[in-house]
């Protein structure tokens, strides 16, 4: 039996190239904003989602760094690392701490500072989340792994790359009205089709950008709720894993960790995919968006791209996804993306999403995927 957990505050820095700011400044800004939004004091614990602090910034012990910078000492502070899902995993840790009754109020912040390194260094650092012995060391970067998956998908479904355009277009469209987003300009199908290739068939407009950012959420128990709070309940939180090597999976297009994290989240929240009003998907590559929609049970493979073409996932469609631009256009500061998703879902459920508001949003699913599907973290939030 666990205690109910609520989110009572969010904070986000703009996502982009923050040439003058480091991890310390970015994370501090997000945490301070989230605590101010929650109008609370007395943080029991800080959980920091971060993937590349060691590899790109030469900084480990990141949670202590940030607790120190924000003035939370001597609170418990731990870094949680789950590749690109690190931010969502930090929220998971905060959820467990409050649900168990060990802590009453915990802050989860995701932060990543990627632009201080050159692109090839960043690509290598990201590849440390893949199987180093059997895949990454042979040059299989994340773009390359995702390209293998996308090529297989195109072959099996007899589609061409253009069928993925709606995912990139809707992300940029949604980001256009998000002041925190990195790319606030809509793109056209022609631009998508003509863009430079990163690893064929993945073009740069299939892929989320390298960037900096931090987002934070404040979680608390029912006992901590005050009349001024606009609490959003964490109806469920789950994590699942799959083989770290892509080659070890019987079907490289089946995101089993994503499927399991979603099914566990639905079971714990006692709801089904039909009950979800919006889905913050892990759209790091358009292929991953399609595969995660399938894995979460929103659509069978034969329907995913067809529905995308029909506007099913756009704002105003039956299942809006990436409502603030997603990883693709809001940006993907890797260890922070999961907390951005959750902070954005909270804004939707509070009815504070402004021009990005999904009408009558009552229940949201967020899913953050690390290591091309080897780890997935899902949360269902309810207004």
């Amino acid at each position, binding site marked *: 039996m666990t205690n109910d957990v609520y989110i009572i505050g969010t904070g986000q820095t703009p996502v982009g*190239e923050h040439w003058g700011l480091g991890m310390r400044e970015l994370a501090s800004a997000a945490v301070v904003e989230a605590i101010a939004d929650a109008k609370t004091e007395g943080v029991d614990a800080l959980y920091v989602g971060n993937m590349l602090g060691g590899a790109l910034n030469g900084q480990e012990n990141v949670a202590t760094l940030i607790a120190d910078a924000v003035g939370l000492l001597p609170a418990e502070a731990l870094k949680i690392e789950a590749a690109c899902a690190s931010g969502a995993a930090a929220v998971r840790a905060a959820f467990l701490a409050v649900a168990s009754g060990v802590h009453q109020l915990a802050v989860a912040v995701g932060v990543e500072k990627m632009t201080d390194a*050159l692109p090839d260094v960043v690509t290598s650092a990201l590849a440390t989340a893949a199987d180093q012995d059997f895949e990454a060391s042979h040059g299989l970067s994340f773009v390359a792994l995702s390209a293998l998956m996308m090529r297989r998908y195109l072959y099996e479904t007899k589609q061409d790359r253009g069928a993925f355009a709606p995912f990139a277009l809707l992300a940029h469209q949604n980001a256009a009205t998000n002041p925190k987003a990195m790319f606030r300009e809509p793109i056209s199908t022609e631009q998508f089709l*003509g863009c*430079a*290739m990163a690893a064929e068939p993945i073009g740069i407009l299939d892929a989320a950008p390298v960037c900096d950012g931090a987002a934070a959420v404040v979680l608390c128990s029912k006992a901590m709720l005050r009349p001024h709070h606009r609490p959003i309940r964490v109806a469920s939180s789950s994590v699942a894993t799959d083989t770290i090597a892509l080659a070890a999976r019987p079907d490289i297009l089946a995101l089993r960790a994503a499927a399991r994290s979603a099914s566990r989240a639905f079971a714990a929240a006692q709801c089904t995919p039909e009950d979800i009003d919006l889905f913050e998907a892990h759209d790091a590559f358009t292929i991953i968006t399609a595969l995660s929609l399938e894995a979460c049970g929103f659509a069978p493979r034969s329907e995913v791209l067809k529905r995308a073409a029909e506007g099913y996932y756009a704002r105003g469609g039956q299942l809006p996804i990436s409502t603030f631009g997603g990883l693709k256009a809001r940006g993907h500061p890797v260890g922070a993306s999961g907390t951005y998703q959750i902070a954005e879902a909270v804004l939707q459920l509070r009815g504070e999403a402004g021009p990005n508001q999904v009408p009558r949003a009552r229940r949201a699913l967020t899913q953050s995927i690390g290591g091309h599907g080897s780890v997935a973290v899902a949360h269902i939030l309810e207004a």
Partner: protein
Amino acid sequence: MKSKIPVGILGYGAYIPRLRLHTKIISAIWRAAGSAAPAVAEKSVPALDEDVITMSIEAGRTALERAGIAPDRIGALWVGTESKPYAVKPSATVVAQALGITPQLVAADMEFACKAGSEAMQAAVAFVGSGLVQGALAIGMDTAQARPGDALEYTAGSGGAAMLFGPASGALALVEASTSFVTDTPDFFRREHAPFPEHGGRFTGEPSYFHHTLSASRRLLNEVGREPKEYAHAVFHQPVPKFVERVAKELGFTEEQVRTGLVARRMGNAYAGSSLLGLAAVLDVARPGDRIFFCSYGSGAGSDAFSFQITGAAANPRRGPTVEDYLSRSHHVGEYGEYLRARRKIRY
């Protein structure tokens, strides 16, 4: 900054090698399908017998001819470059000897990435403006390096210009004021013994080129109390034309004001020679009374900004080859391999 004694440009000269390379030849070898087209259509390439020393001598000779002064009146010579033929041993001494300026002079090579030439201009203004010397020759000249396949290779060009400073009386252009804006910003560098520079990708833009160029430019406009519209021409360091177009727009200069000085469109980025070449191109056509705005940029990083006014006092300021003469004299390298050989990029 303003010198105690008024200083002006007495003469100037440019040099651009004759060889050109169509950047589509580089694209054919290196560019990924769908990636952005090269920033310039062609760039200048030094022949095997051209280097910063020979090119500086040519530009310096034109500057002396135009100034019409005896070489022994020149008391200082600096060569600002990223392409020193000798790592240790000045290029400036060879240039000075060839121009007949030796032995009574201050001479050295200057290094500040792409603003080494304008750094020499600042020093020249200071030496003349303090009365230490009657003439000082500031040269910015480069045979720009770029690793094969690097984004820089599409624009790295060769050329530069010499600016001869002296007392304002009889000068063809007056120095109204200058400023310098410098921070430690490691956007682009070449390590000792390394043949090619490294750069920080997108970091070379916003926090580097734009921050320093805009900051120095705004400070200078503020110091002289002028609006961009009061200038007939504006010259900036030109790594790629679109960088210049953007700073011009942000500062309030028009396309018309920057067109003449934007020589990179036709020959690429001559690193330390780039902004001085643009200034020389403007001096070739400017009329008496015209004001010229100038702002360099050098990685590492900093910008020198100058405000000039054309006097009309010089008797024959445009003797010898103009920048346009050099730009329109060209022979195109036919193959990438020929270019690699000319640039001594084949190593074994």
